[in-house]
């Protein structure tokens, strides 16, 4: 029976506990906005990883979900004065809807074709945001109020905001974990491994892929909506293809198809951005080098390599 060995189970739980402990204690030492940014991107990368790591679909347009949810949540909070949890939910819903529409177009193709099509769709969405009146174009939607959670807790307080982001992140992370280890996740893996075979066993593969795509879009949306509240801003770069590239990098660096990889990757990239900000464009060079090194020498990513060494799925 595929009962994971005691060690394997232990390892994953331990790693998870470590991660939770880290995010619970870190704000005592580290600038919390920075940590919130890490969590938002980590969730975004987890969502992306759900597609590439577990369905074998490389979306090169995932920023569109981050972006659309950011705008939707910002609009809801700023113009409609919705409470933050509702604003985030609205963002998630919009991302899921966009996921449904773009998924219907994209999932019929595979591999690089899928990547190109998602990229182009995202670009279409990007130009829409650039021109749509409610996004503020290049200026972005600024001065988004963080509001009061459930009308009660004022998120302008850094601690409260942190708690909220932490909760969203954990919920998203656990959902990804559950999806991967669900009957549905099993079918996804089978489809990734051999699509014609899955069809011949009676699976309508497009529907499974579509659901996975929508779930991933929704989770990316949760990240985008939360991020908009943290920074009180929804702006174009979140929907730009460079962001789509960045999430690929985070996931690749952390480890494709590992659960913790995207979190580690997101942390590393955000940290790099922060600490190397004074190097300006060299950040770009360093990112490029990381890409190249990962692809050429390090394909499993940080967490993937560690997992391989310890023989523990992470």
């Amino acid at each position, binding site marked *: 029976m595929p009962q994971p060995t005691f060690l394997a189970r232990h390892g994953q739980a331990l790693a998870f506990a470590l991660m939770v402990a880290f995010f619970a204690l870190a704000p005592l030492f580290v600038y919390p906005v920075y940590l919130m940014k890490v969590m938002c991107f980590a969730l975004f990368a987890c969502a992306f990883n759900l597609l590439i790591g577990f369905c074998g679909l490389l979306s*090169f347009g995932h920023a569109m979900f981050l972006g659309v949810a950011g705008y939707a949540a910002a609009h809801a909070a700023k113009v409609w004065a919705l409470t933050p949890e509702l604003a985030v939910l609205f963002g998630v819903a919009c991302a899921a809807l966009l996921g449904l529409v773009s998924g219907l177009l994209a999932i019929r193709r595979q591999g690089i074709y899928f990547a190109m*099509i998602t990229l*182009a769709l995202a670009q279409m969405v990007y130009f829409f945001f650039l*021109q749509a009146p409610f996004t503020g174009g290049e200026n972005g939607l600024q001065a988004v109020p963080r509001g009061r959670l459930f009308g009660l807790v004022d998120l302008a307080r850094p601690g409260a905001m942190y708690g909220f982001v932490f909760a969203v992140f954990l919920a998203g992370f656990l959902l990804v974990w559950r999806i991967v280890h669900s009957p549905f996740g099993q079918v996804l893996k089978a489809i990734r491994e051999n699509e014609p075979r899955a069809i011949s066993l009676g699976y309508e593969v497009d529907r499974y892929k579509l659901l996975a795509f929508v779930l991933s879009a929704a989770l990316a949306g949760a990240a985008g909506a939360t991020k908009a509240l943290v920074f009180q801003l929804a702006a174009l770069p979140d929907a730009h293809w460079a962001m789509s590239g960045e999430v690929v990098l985070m996931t690749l660096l952390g480890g494709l198809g590992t659960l913790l990889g995207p979190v580690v990757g997101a942390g590393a990239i955000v940290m790099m951005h922060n600490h190397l900000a004074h190097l300006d464009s060299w950040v770009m060079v360093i*990112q*490029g080098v990381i*890409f190249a090194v990962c692809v050429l020498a390090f394909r499993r990513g940080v967490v993937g390599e560690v997992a391989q060494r310890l023989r523990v799925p992470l």
Partner: protein
Amino acid sequence: MDIFGIPSQALFGQLLIGLINGSFYALLSLGLAIIFGLLRIINFAHGAQYMFGAFIAYLLLHKAGVGYWWALLLAPLTVGALGAVVERLMLSRLYRVDHLYSLMLTFGLGLIVQGVFLSEYGSSGQPYPMPAQLSGGRNLGFMFMPYYRVWVIGFSVAVCVAAWLLIERTRLGGTLRAANENPTLVQAFGINVPRMLTLTYGAGAGLAALAGVMAAPIYQVGALMGTELIIVVFAVVVIGGMGSLLGSILAGFGLGLAEGLTKVFYPEAANTVVFVLMALVILAKPNGLFGARN
């Protein structure tokens, strides 16, 4: 004279400008299609190679006093040679793994090149003069057409046709495609596949650089000049049918014109029209307009 309530001057003017943009789309998508069709690599570094070409022209002029015409020869050769080195040292190791990895690698390489130029020259463009022989222009009645832009259209058509004939009308094309599918076997037939792949990638990169030199006098020379353009070109390639050279060329010019038309009739959509068309094409013909194979 008005056509559909639009002054003909505006209509023809925008169409001609569209054709100029289309020349760049066609040249760039041709290079991408060559690399994709034969190596199955989505060359994300294409935009950077285009920019690199333009910068070589710029540097040749400012550091060595070498002008446009030599740049038109030297820049593609240099970038092509560098491309060949990259293929030999890095890309060649990825043929065995999922193609997505080579996409990511070229993405990373593009970042490196861009980052270097960005930190050296900043993100704003540097002007590059038109070659003296092509200064001036001609009044077409509906617009004044600078000679340089005429040259751009003419030369890129010529390059596209030549490249297409070379690859599709000779056995080279078939050999390249086969090598892409099963390089070891083609090699076992006595063909030096590694060298062929290296040269192909070099040629694709060289084409990008050629486009870059041609763009320098029009669009200025800047580290980010390739970034946005290349995404449009990806869409062009998808519309033309990935890997189809003819499709890429025709889609390149066609989309330039389509953009021009949109600018006349519904300017707000000019940025998006390529992507909208792409979505429509995928819906109707998932393999693109000319993508018969696969």
